[in-house]
């Protein structure tokens, strides 16, 4: 059981024994376990089987009686694999350091300073979440290619002697750092907001300066939260394929994910090798996740509870304009400049820019790339498919999350801990690996799932289940116990109580889980990269395909389209979730009203 779930379960009363401990309860647990086995354990088993074979389980030559450790050993000792892993550690590690610096700075700026417009900066700091890392990598490759990158063309016009080169370690680290900073920001801002500020207050009374307080009091107090955020950032970037694929391939900087991709898609493909490398990636990621959870649940839980004093806001004087400037620069670097670069290439007939002056030759601008894009039948199909997969995954995911969350947090049924472990297992499995395991798991099962949108839904569901579970268990733990108990005392059954009491008051958590799954499943490509074909293509997969087979103008145009659709759909989802929350609140008030009236 997750630490959060353990704490919540300890404070929440169990449902009546008569309903849950009986046969129905056991059958319920068995059904959920069977579902999770199909969703998580069986594909993982197939991956392991693939890693322990010589040919991969898809091959006609595969035999269960010939399993061995040869490929696992060969990959572990292969020089390219070792180099790829080392590169991943370097780029993801240093990228995390950059993300930590940016995220912490923004958290401090919005939570502890009087910087003008800090609320807007707080929102803006999350904008990079709307720019998928693959799109960001494409945009920065346009800006910083060594000879003809748009920024280099501008730098050349100024006569400055240096040039940027995004096809390098520095380029990958930069993109990881800038686009994963919001992950750190969210953790750090929450920790700063929730920490007991009396220590900072005492330091101020004792005459300690604001900067010294920051580094000797505030930072050590929130260090576990920062460590947890850093580990999460490191683990997430470790599983990213797009950034090293766009910026590292040309510079011959293989990462562990591009290495797996090359093994799988290579000529000839090495499926068993890809599975073996994936197993190592799962082990490393798993260790990172365990460490992250340990950090998140140990000191952090103690130091960031309750608050006796409101945090002191640090007056920055004239420096507040500097911090404001830094916030604006971040927005420019993370969102505005890359989007402008994509627009420049998308609206230009072709990519060649002879000089700085040629950038403003408006006769070369037009809508050709967009016309080509919309003439392609797969463009609209990808948007439509993404909608179907996003909505279906969100609907199924929120129902499953609620069922699992309720069972884990609010019952004492035997086997609920096993449910928790299995449901959160995919957090340690990079998306790309989920894709490979699903391919092998479902292609051989004659139920016609392979090659359909259904398998994309299931792979996305498995991958994003742990993220949504976190939100769901938290909400269920906060639900009032009295209402549920009152319902049982009145003789209402478990299902009716859930429908009438629990669901309305936890609607915001269900909606948040659904929205999170929806956004992730239409934004990310990893889990579905090996599972799609042209009929089941999704937006991020269409972008990957365009990168492989089309012109850069089309890639830029589609990137813009994807960002616009992502923002639009997220906004619609957010509005629906808000509306649902209002309805939930109204229903909750209706349920509570009689008690209030009696009082």
């Amino acid at each position, binding site marked *: 059981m997750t630490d959060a779930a353990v704490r919540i379960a300890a404070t929440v009363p169990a449902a009546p024994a008569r309903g849950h401990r009986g046969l129905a309860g056991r059958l319920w647990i068995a059904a959920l376990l069977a579902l999770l086995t199909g969703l998580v354990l069986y594909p993982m088993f197939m991956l392991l089987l693939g890693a322990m074979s010589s040919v991969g389980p*898809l*091959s*006609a030559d595969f035999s269960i009686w010939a399993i061995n450790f040869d490929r696992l050993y060969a990959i572990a000792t292969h*020089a*390219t694999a070792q*180099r*790829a892993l080392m590169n991943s550690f370097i780029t993801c590690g240093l990228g995390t350091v950059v993300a930590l610096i940016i995220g912490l700075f923004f958290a401090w700026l919005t939570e502890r300073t009087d910087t003008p417009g800090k609320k807007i900066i707080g929102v803006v700091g999350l904008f990079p979440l709307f720019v998928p890392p693959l799109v960001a990598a494409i945009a920065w490759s346009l800006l910083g*290619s*060594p*000879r*003809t990158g748009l920024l280099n063309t501008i730098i050349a016009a100024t006569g400055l002697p240096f040039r940027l080169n995004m096809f390098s370690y520095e380029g990958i680290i930069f993109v990881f750092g800038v686009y994963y900073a919001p992950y750190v920001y969210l953790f750090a801002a929450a920790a700063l907001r929730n920490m007991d500020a009396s220590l900072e207050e005492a330091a101020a009374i004792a005459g300690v300066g604001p900067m010294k307080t920051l580094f000797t009091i505030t930072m050590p107090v929130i260090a576990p939260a920062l460590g947890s955020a850093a580990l999460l950032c490191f683990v997430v970037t470790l599983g990213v394929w797009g950034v090293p694929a766009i910026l590292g*391939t*040309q510079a*011959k900087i*293989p990462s562990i994910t591009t290495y797996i991709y*090359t093994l*799988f*898609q*290579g*000529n*000839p*493909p090495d*499926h068993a090798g890809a599975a073996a490398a994936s197993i190592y990636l799962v082990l490393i990621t798993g260790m990172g996740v365990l460490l992250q959870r340990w950090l998140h649940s140990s000191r952090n839980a103690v130091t960031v509870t309750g608050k006796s004093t409101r945090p002191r806001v640090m007056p920055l004087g004239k420096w507040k304009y500097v911090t404001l400037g830094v916030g604006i620069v971040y927005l420019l670097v993370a969102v505005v400049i890359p989007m402008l670069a994509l627009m420049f290439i998308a609206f230009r*007939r*072709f*990519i*060649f*820019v*002879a000089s700085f002056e040629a950038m403003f030759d408006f006769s070369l601008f037009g809508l*050709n790339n967009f016309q080509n894009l919309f003439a*392609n*039948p*797969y463009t609209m199909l990808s948007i439509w498919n993404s909608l179907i997969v996003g909505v279906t995954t969100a609907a199924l995911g929120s129902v499953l999350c609620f069922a699992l969350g309720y069972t884990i947090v609010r019952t004492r049924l035997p086997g609920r801990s096993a449910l928790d472990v299995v449901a959160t297992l995919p957090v340690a499995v990079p998306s790309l690996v989920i894709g490979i395991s699903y391919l092998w798991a479902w*292609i*051989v099962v*004659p139920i016609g799932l392979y*090659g359909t949108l259904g398998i994309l839904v299931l792979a996305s569901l498995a991958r994003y289940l742990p993220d949504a579970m976190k939100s769901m268990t938290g909400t269920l733990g906060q639900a009032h116990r009295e209402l549920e108990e009152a319902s049982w005392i009145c003789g209402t059954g478990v299902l009716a109580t859930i429908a009438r009491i629990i669901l309305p008051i936890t609607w915001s958590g269900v909606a948040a889980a659904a929205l999170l799954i929806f956004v992730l499943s239409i934004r990310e490509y990893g889990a579905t990269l*090996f599972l799609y*074909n*042209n*009929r089941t293509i999704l937006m991020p997969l269409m972008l990957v*395909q365009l*990168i*492989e*087979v*089309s*012109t*850069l*103008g089309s890639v830029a145009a589609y990137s813009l389209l994807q960002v616009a659709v992502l923002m639009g759909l997220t906004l619609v989802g957010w509005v629906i979730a808000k509306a649902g929350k209002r309805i939930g609140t109204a229903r909750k008030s209706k349920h509570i009203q009689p008690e209030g009236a009696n009082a």
Partner: protein
Amino acid sequence: MSRNSRMTFKTALSATIGAALLSTTALAQNFDAQRIEAARKEGALTFYSANLPELLQALVAKFNTRFPFVKVEIVRLANPPLIARVEAEATANRLTADLMETTDLNDAKKLENIFDDAYAPPNAKDYPAAAQISKRFWPMCGAAYVVMVNTALVKTMPTKLDDLLDPALKGKVGTVVPGAGGTSWSAALMQRVVKGEDYWKKFADQKPLTFQSSVPLGTAVASGELLMGFAPLIAVAPIQKQGAPVAAIGLDEGIPTSVTAGAVTKTAKNPNAARLFLDWATSAEGQAAYTELGCASVLPGQSLPTAMKVNSGKVWVTPFAEYADRQPGWVAEWNKMYGVNQ
């Protein structure tokens, strides 16, 4: 309009209609009438292919102007996952493809048993022996490798392979790794077979940028990041169409061309539609359609694609025997020489 002119108009109209009818009849005679009727009854076809998606859509559109009654469903994947999918589906007895087109002939050979050996296109004997892979796979698109040049930055066009060894080009040329697929392997094979063993070494000394696929190489040349590079013509043509300053140059030594291979599956649900498609694709008419889309046909008598500037006009058809035998060892050698980790 005068009587004479009306007569003339009538005569001209009759002649045109007559010619059109004759032409349709003549074309129709190229294809087996019974097969056309059987295909009409099937009405559909599932076509697995590793060719470029835009090319496939355009090709199917051309096929459908000729045979509108066959609805072609394309399932497009890159070659390795396509082969993996076909193999897995066949192992599970759930192969849904009626027709498959692969860009790697070695892969195609491994799966030979799941394809129909009773079918051959009517003009099979017209194809050169080098392009005849087996009795199951038939040449479809001839993927020609050219030198893609940024004409805004390069004034003197290369004409020979040795021109790419000019020291002024050091670090400013590119190539797709031969391990990426059949076409890039064909180009590397031709360089070594025609120019001798040390050409690879000399070109490696030019410190070329290496790419895993042709599209990023095309982008690098089109943007001016590179001055020139070896690239398949079908990757150059769309960039040229945009108006970008790029040229596709066929060198004097020949234009390395490997064919994509098409085969009808033994378990095809629509065998007649699949055979009709292959009949059409391998015919002079189908090959002309391919040429229009940027493929270099290996069928004798076909003209070269207009997108290509050719010096010699000589197509170097990749000999399959060498292609298959040399591939593993020579690709590994190339990777080591060029510092490519695969």
